[in-house]
């Protein structure tokens, strides 16, 4: 059975390390839903957070292969772990008219989304939260006409020390 897995990779910050990781997944036939790579508290160490779809067996193989990369320090599949915090960030531009503006702003308030730019024709907003919450907001804003949005992909951190 296929399901989405969030994998946290701790890697040494070397040239091309992200290419190695994403290339390995492509080479072995896995689709990456989202990737984030960013520095950590230690400038030599990067965290890469991947969301990949696959069966449990597929994902086990992926994590083993990722572990083999010389620059990989740690690979953790946190999908079945309740002790982790996951967030995603979105910036979205929704079309509004005089009539719908206050309705949309009300909706944003319910979601604790923050308007960044309000004009005659649109509102640009930001929101961070679980992917599901973001999906829901998008769903609710669709009828007003979504002009564009950009999502960050998932960030994650376990509550315990890894």
């Amino acid at each position, binding site marked *: 059975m296929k399901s989405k897995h969030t994998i946290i990779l701790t890697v040494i910050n070397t040239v091309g390390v992200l*290419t190695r990781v994403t290339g390995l997944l492509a080479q072995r036939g896995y689709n990456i839903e989202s990737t984030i790579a960013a520095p950590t508290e230690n400038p030599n160490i990067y965290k890469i957070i991947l969301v990949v779809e696959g069966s449990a067996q597929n994902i086990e*193989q992926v994590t083993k292969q990722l*572990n083999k990369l*010389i620059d990989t320090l740690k690979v953790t599949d946190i999908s079945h772990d309740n002790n982790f915090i996951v967030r995603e960030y979105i910036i979205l531009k929704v079309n509004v008219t005089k009539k719908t503006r206050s309705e949309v702003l009300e909706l944003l308030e319910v979601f604790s989304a923050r308007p960044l730019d309000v004009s005659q024709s649109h509102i640009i907003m930001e929101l961070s939260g679980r992917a599901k919450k973001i999906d829901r907001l998008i769903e609710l804003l669709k009828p007003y006409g979504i002009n564009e949005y950009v999502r960050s992909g998932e960030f994650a951190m376990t509550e315990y020390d890894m």
Partner: protein
Amino acid sequence: MKGAEILIDALIKEGVDTIFGYPGGVLIPVFDVLFSTKEINFILPRHEQGAAHAADGYARATGKTGVCLVTSGPGATNAITGIATAKLDSTPMVIISGQVSTKLIGTDAFQEADMLGLTRSICKHNCMVTDVKDLPRTIKEAFHIANTGRPGPVSIDLPVDVSNADFPDYKYPETIELPGYKPVIKGNKKQIQKLADAINIAKRPLLYTGGGIISSSASDNLLQLVEKTNIPVATTLMGLGSIPYNHPYYLGMPGMHGFAAANYSFTECDLLIAVGCRFDDRITGPLNTFVTQAKVAHIDIDPAEIGKNIHTEIPVVGDAKLVLEKLVDIVKERKPNAWNERVTELKEKFKLTYNQDENEKILPQYIIDSINKFIPDDAIVVTDVGQHQMWSAQFINHKHPRSFLSSGGLGTMGFGLPAAMGAAVGQPNKMVVNICGDGGFQMNIQELATCAINNIPVKSIILNNTYLGMVRQWQDLFWEKKYSQTCLKQDPSCPPGCTGPNGSCNKQYWPNFVKVAEANGVKGFRIESPSEINNVLEEAFKVDGPVVVEVLVDKLVNVFPMVPSGKKINEIIFGDEK
């Protein structure tokens, strides 16, 4: 010290005595240093692919890390097939490719190719040195990574300005710091105990061993295990030689062209103990039909191989030698039982044979079997890829590890001659025989000159059937004999629907291998009938230097037994032979 000097000094400190390589613009600083380096024997193959395969052959024959030095752009891309070949067969190799100056990288400079990007998926590790201060550490790490854990090729890209840069405080590092690379060598005690327990209660255990036995020098330990437990053994193509061919419980190679006894034993066993092998599709057939009656145990140094294709009940991550040592200690002695009788019966019943009529065309099996008579016990047999490779796996008397070198994983035609050359350079006191087909021989035929000039005494036996035989065999059996582009005598005037040689085909075959050999300064021979074999082989093997023996073999012989692609491994076609 300049980067180029540091590189050569570092290689010498790593114990490198031989480099296979080819110069080029960005490597001139390095070759300038090599000009006056006495510690390294430099071999100049005539093509970078030859250099890469030669370094590979050297590594397979000696166990040491092979070193290949090629220039940027085309030099580097020419080496790619050799790197991928080494990766698939886990050969330790360090490939150093020149690169354009760091200031020019990314500008499509002359002879620039993105070697890092190109090799990423076909090597164990790769990197580019952009600062001369990183060079010593990089070399040290490359050799460490290449020849520890599961061995493999490591590719280093070296821009020319780094070769020219000065590093006055150069000191070769003594230690390695690779926090992300810690291969598990010692097997987990509990897991080994679990495996021993499983063997103790198994009724029909079977060992299935691969190249890992050879790379970890575990042949003796494997033999000890077999002596103590009497468990029958099947050995993959990469593992041939790890157990002597005439051992009573040796079943031969399993798989698509494997011995029927081995395949049937896989189907019947109740415990499969895999060691240093990877359940390749050429061995398993459809995965859901493979060893359905057996519990599977897998010893491998690469954790990613365990459970990759086949569900494994008893995984043991570790070096084959260390794990087997421990296993031999704790496993109970096992007396031969009905299962041993059964496999012996299978072995007897499905012995590989051939029927050579002295007045007919030479059977490829016969010429390969004949080679056994003329080669010393410690000879190294190298093959190319195709039908002759399978016949060599079947009919050569494999006696020692590192004595059968073949491109198994990637199946690289053109591997044979340069790999044999590398093996002969690495093992100058052993006879090296290169068995190949007429198709593959032409893929790196230029290395004949390298052999002649350096007096590298490779004995090449070309089985010429005028076809790309293995593909022709599939066309024969599964594609209605439509020999599309597999006849090497085909010319534009051939009838479009030709289904193979018949009385009226009087086309000329090119090239004339004997003349090609002679033109390259290599003694050439031709054998056309069975009665000539003994005399010619005897004479050829006596030559003190490289030789080419072209053997005109029966054109349409197919390799059997065969398990057609997609079939279970016990659904064997036996062909004409039993």
